[in-house]
């Protein structure tokens, strides 16, 4: 398939272009609108998301029949895989914008920048999901990172937020630097930046013995540092609890879902089409390394979550753990594995964002992110409490909620490849995870609110948004279409 030239590509690239336009429009509108209270900017960016959503679908359905299309001389690729992630990411962005509308901790004067950055980061993630060239990979990664550093530190005059930003950027810079070094080695060995060619060349070289497996291994590990830091996998996870706790809640939600998803998109495309060939696997069995990483990630995440008192931080650790579960699927190099990951990402999107939404609500009501703040919620706001319970149990992976079906797919895929120990670790972990999720449920239902049991009332909009997360969390598992994602993996699975 011949890569398209830059001019031809533009049409296929319309979603990203639209994003840029809207980002710019947001900044301009912010200059026009003087009234700091108006939420015009937010609504504009919402509109943007919807338009882009439409364009994504249009581009996908009008070009997908041509199979994967390589754009900009092989820099990015438009295929079903990237479209999937674009949809996913847009959902996350939309949700985040809605949260931000309700969140009261954000500085009203900086709305314009805020939403513009949100759209920008979405653009970066789009690229992460679709780039097929080392250069593009690095640029997209940096775009996302830089913007998220800023967003994490967005709460001016809040030391925790600034600290979060500082740790985030230091950590991120080193990680991406390490990754870049790995990329350079890779480039050196393969003599090309294009993933497809890298795979081919590396295979040849290894076969010819012109390259030491150790060199390839080092390159892979260095790159893993960069990717692992995006998906917060042990041992590259340590930034995430602090950052999640310090950052504004909507951003925490966004990072925990969107940037993790984008990270997985990058990870899958890069590792599968870059190092997925069987010959390369024989030389360097990196999947085993991943298996260990995944086991460690989920265990550490769950155990660290146990004693947490701050719900945000608790959810941060839990999202680390979920990163571990997702990695199990990445170990397998099978369409089923990828299908499971994609399915789980969708489920995870809904249940985790839902949980964070409740966190936002409670933070607004109670001004607290601590578990104590949730005490007696069932009597104060039953619907919210039940919704939260559903999200948490879904995160635990208990039927009939979608989380269970997601876990089920993953474990089935893992067991099929004979990784029994990994599956067992994962399952025991989900038992452990029940405990800390149940602590929140316990606070909400089994403990009395104490002296004040005033009915806290939320706007109908809140409930509407809540239901947007609850209903999929309950239903997804029962719908057939969601089990067909393994086809999506076609463009990234290397031809064996």
């Amino acid at each position: 398939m011949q890569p398209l030239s830059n001019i031809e590509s533009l049409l296929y690239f319309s979603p990203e272009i639209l994003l840029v336009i809207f980002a710019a429009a947001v900044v301009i509108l912010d200059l026009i609108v003087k009234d700091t209270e108006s939420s015009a900017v937010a609504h504009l960016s919402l509109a943007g998301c919807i338009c882009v959503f439409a364009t994504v679908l249009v581009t996908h359905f009008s070009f997908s029949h041509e199979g994967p299309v390589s754009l900009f001389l092989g820099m990015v690729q438009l295929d079903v895989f990237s479209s999937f992630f674009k949809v996913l990411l847009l959902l996350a962005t939309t949700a985040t914008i809605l949260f931000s509308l309700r969140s009261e901790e954000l500085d009203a004067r900086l709305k314009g920048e805020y939403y513009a950055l949100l759209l920008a980061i979405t653009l970066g993630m789009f690229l992460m999901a679709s780039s097929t060239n080392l250069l593009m990979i690095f640029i997209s990664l940096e775009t996302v990172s830089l913007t998220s550093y800023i967003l994490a530190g967005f709460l001016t005059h809040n030391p925790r937020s600034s600290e979060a930003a500082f740790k985030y950027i230091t950590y991120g810079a080193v990680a991406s630097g390490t990754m870049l070094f790995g990329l350079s080695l890779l480039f050196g060995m393969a003599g090309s930046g294009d993933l497809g060619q890298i795979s081919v060349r590396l295979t040849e070289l290894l076969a010819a013995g012109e390259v030491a497996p150790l060199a390839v291994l080092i390159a892979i590990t260095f790159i893993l540092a960069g990717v692992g830091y995006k998906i917060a996998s042990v041992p590259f996870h340590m930034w995430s609890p602090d950052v999640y706790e310090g950052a504004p809640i909507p951003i925490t939600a966004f990072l925990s879902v969107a940037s993790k998803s984008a990270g997985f998109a990058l990870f899958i495309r890069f590792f599968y089409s870059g190092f997925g060939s069987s010959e390369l696997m024989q030389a360097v069995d990196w999947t085993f390394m991943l298996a260990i990483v995944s086991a460690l990630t989920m265990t550490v995440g769950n155990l660290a979550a146990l004693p947490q008192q701050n719900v945000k931080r608790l959810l941060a650790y839990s999202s680390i753990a979920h990163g571990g579960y997702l990695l199990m699927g990445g170990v397998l190099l099978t369409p089923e594995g990828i299908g499971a990951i994609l399915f789980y990402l969708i489920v995870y999107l809904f249940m985790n964002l839902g949980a964070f939404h409740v966190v936002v609500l409670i933070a607004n009501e109670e001004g607290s992110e601590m578990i104590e703040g949730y005490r007696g919620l069932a009597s104060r706001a039953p619907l919210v409490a039940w919704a939260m319970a559903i999200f948490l149990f879904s995160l635990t992976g208990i039927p009939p909620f979608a989380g269970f079906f997601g876990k089920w797919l993953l474990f089935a895929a893992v067991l099929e490849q004979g990784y029994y120990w990994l599956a067992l670790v994962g399952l025991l972990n989900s038992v452990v995870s029940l405990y800390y999720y149940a602590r929140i449920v316990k606070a909400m239902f089994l403990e009395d609110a104490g002296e004040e049991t005033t009915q806290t009332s939320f706007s109908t909009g809140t409930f509407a948004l809540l239901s947007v997360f609850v209903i999929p969390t309950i239903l997804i598992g029962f719908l057939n279409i969601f089990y067909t994602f393994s086809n999506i993996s076609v463009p990234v699975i290397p031809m064996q």
Partner: protein
Amino acid sequence: MLLSLMIFIPLLGMIAVLLLPRESEELIKRVALLFTLVPLALAVALFISYDRSTAGTQYVVNVPWIQAFNIQYHIGIDGLSVTLLLLTALLGPICVIASWRNIEKGIKAYMALFLLLETGMLGFFAALDLFLFYVFFELTLLPMYFLIGIWGGPRREYAAIKFFLYTLFGSVLMLVAMIAVYLNSGAPGARTFDIPTLITLASTEGHALNNVNFQIWVFLGFFIGFAVKVPIFPFHTWLPDAHVEAPTAISVILAGILLKMGTYGLVRINMAMFPKGLDFFCNGIGFWGNSLALLGFINIVYGSFCALAQTDFKKLVAYSSIGHMGFVILGLSARNDSGITGAILQMFNHGVISAMLFLLVGVLYDRAHHREINGFGGLGTKMPVYTGITTLAFMASLGLPGLSGFVGEALSLLGAYDKFKMLTILSTIGIVVGAAYFLWTLQRVFLGTLNPKYEELPEINGREILTLVPLGILTIVLGVWPNFAIDMFRESVTNLIDVLHAI
């Protein structure tokens, strides 16, 4: 269709209850009662129209659900499940009535959860697709957690989470085993969760599922999952806490149905699907060959002695359940018709009797607000009717002939003696000890001079009697005419035994 209705009507009921305003409590209760009575009516219809002459499953519904894994919504009943289904449908309204007065707060949520729970239980007993089976199995978990946790006693949080964690721990192992079975059930694409199909596959020579070692491991996986529910020593420690803390109606469900889910699973999955695995654990050769029977024996003796030592009325009943489930395990391990029939009868009867016992404990607790056995005394003069019914329940539970408890116990013992002579003889200790703790309790609570504290204790009221009478009648009827129940599942048992001896 009838079956699906029966399963999902309580779910509709839940929705209905949720739609009602939380203030109109009476209405909520009535609606809940209605939506539990309908399944009962259906169950009766089922009982009447059920064809007792065949071992095959009846009222089968089989529609594809998740094609990707060819998971089906496949339900149906055979003799084994129909009995438990009836029991569930019967206990439903009884528990609603039992909760009529003594649930103070949040009756709405309570009823909603209860209805959800009933759907879970009914579905579990009807499911013929392994995946569906598991989903329903877990579906009972959540409502139970809340029902114990919110409406329970002082240590409810602890009891609830303990119950939840134990069961979840068991069920994840079960999940692994389940997936292993699925993956080995055929080539990719041809795999299935369909229980009947799997059973046939497992019994076909040379099939992956037929391999002995595979069966042993998978057996273990499922077994632990169910053993927690039954509960089998040493996975039983959740039970006393859960029972003591749970509100009356929930203890009834817990003892009446949830425990049976464990044993039902053992029969439906472990025995029918993995006869070779089962053979390894109860062929009577060596340690492993006796392990299952040994567990049964331990449950009986251990549970009975623990019960003997209790001073909390409810805890005593709870431990007695452990003892009685031991007879089920013992009977099943015998693998002959009297053993298995006895076990199944024991399941059903224990469901009825323990339900009675917990209801009775509840009656006393509502009046005296404590359960300390030694704190009572001489109630026999004050509340003769209550005493009479309690005596009936106790006698049934300690296996007095003429009442249902005896038949199950006797049959399982008769069956088990065939295979495990020594263990069975030792297990009969349980009979004596069982009599001992029940009579001792009877004496400490009802006999002797009336404890002046309770001069004014009101007699059991009509509503409470209403909950007890159906169960009492069942106890007597099944004791006098066991065939009444056995007819339902005789064929199924014969069929099962053929499967077991086919290996």
